[in-house]
């Protein structure tokens, strides 16, 4: 597993947090919530892809 993905997830988390903070201070709480949820969905998709690749690798390994 590449370590890049971890840095990418951390970067997305930090940037999404800052976006949410900027929007909250500007009084756009609903859009801040949407931004946070969008970031969460993007990261979840990335994690799901990684887990899926992991299980595929394990399956191919055990199937010989």
């Amino acid at each position, binding site marked *: 597993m590449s370590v890049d993905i971890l840095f*990418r997830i951390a970067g*997305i988390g930090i*940037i999404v947090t*800052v*976006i949410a903070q*900027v*929007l909250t201070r*500007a009084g756009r709480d609903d859009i801040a919530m949407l931004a946070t949820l969008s*970031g969460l969905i*993007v990261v979840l998709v990335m994690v799901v892809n990684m887990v899926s690749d992991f299980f595929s690798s394990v399956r191919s390994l055990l199937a010989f």
Partner: protein
Amino acid sequence: MGLRIILAGVVVVGATLCGKALSDAARQRASALGTLVEDVKRLRVHMVSMFEPVPDSLARAESPLLRQVGEGMRGGLSAGEAWAQVRRGRSFRAGPGNVLLREDREALDRLFGKLGESGRESQEVLLSGTAEQLERLEAAAREKAGAAERLYVTLGLLVGLLLAVIVI
């Protein structure tokens, strides 16, 4: 690697410029109100001090809206009727009228509803009152435009960084 960094930079700059473009509408409104304030003040001087007819004074305005009202008045309409005609026109929504908000249009409705229909002193009070109201709206619009520009440029930069991290 170098190409990725360049691409990330392009994405960030592009998104920031998009954010700046989004804040343009707020700035245009402040600018339009500023033009209207100057025109109303000029109108007051020409009409009240120099006794110039209303259509001629309006024809010299910088704002295209006031010039169109002046043209309508030269065609025989009253100020209110000419303004109503301008508001119904397609060029209003597609052009300078597009950036004005409801309170801006209401101030102009009040102005044109009574323009040229009473004595000199009443006209001076009407024009002075409208100029003050438009100045207040302009000040508020400039403040909003500044805040909107800062917000959208910051958001554009952050979204650009996010896209650069996700995609590149």
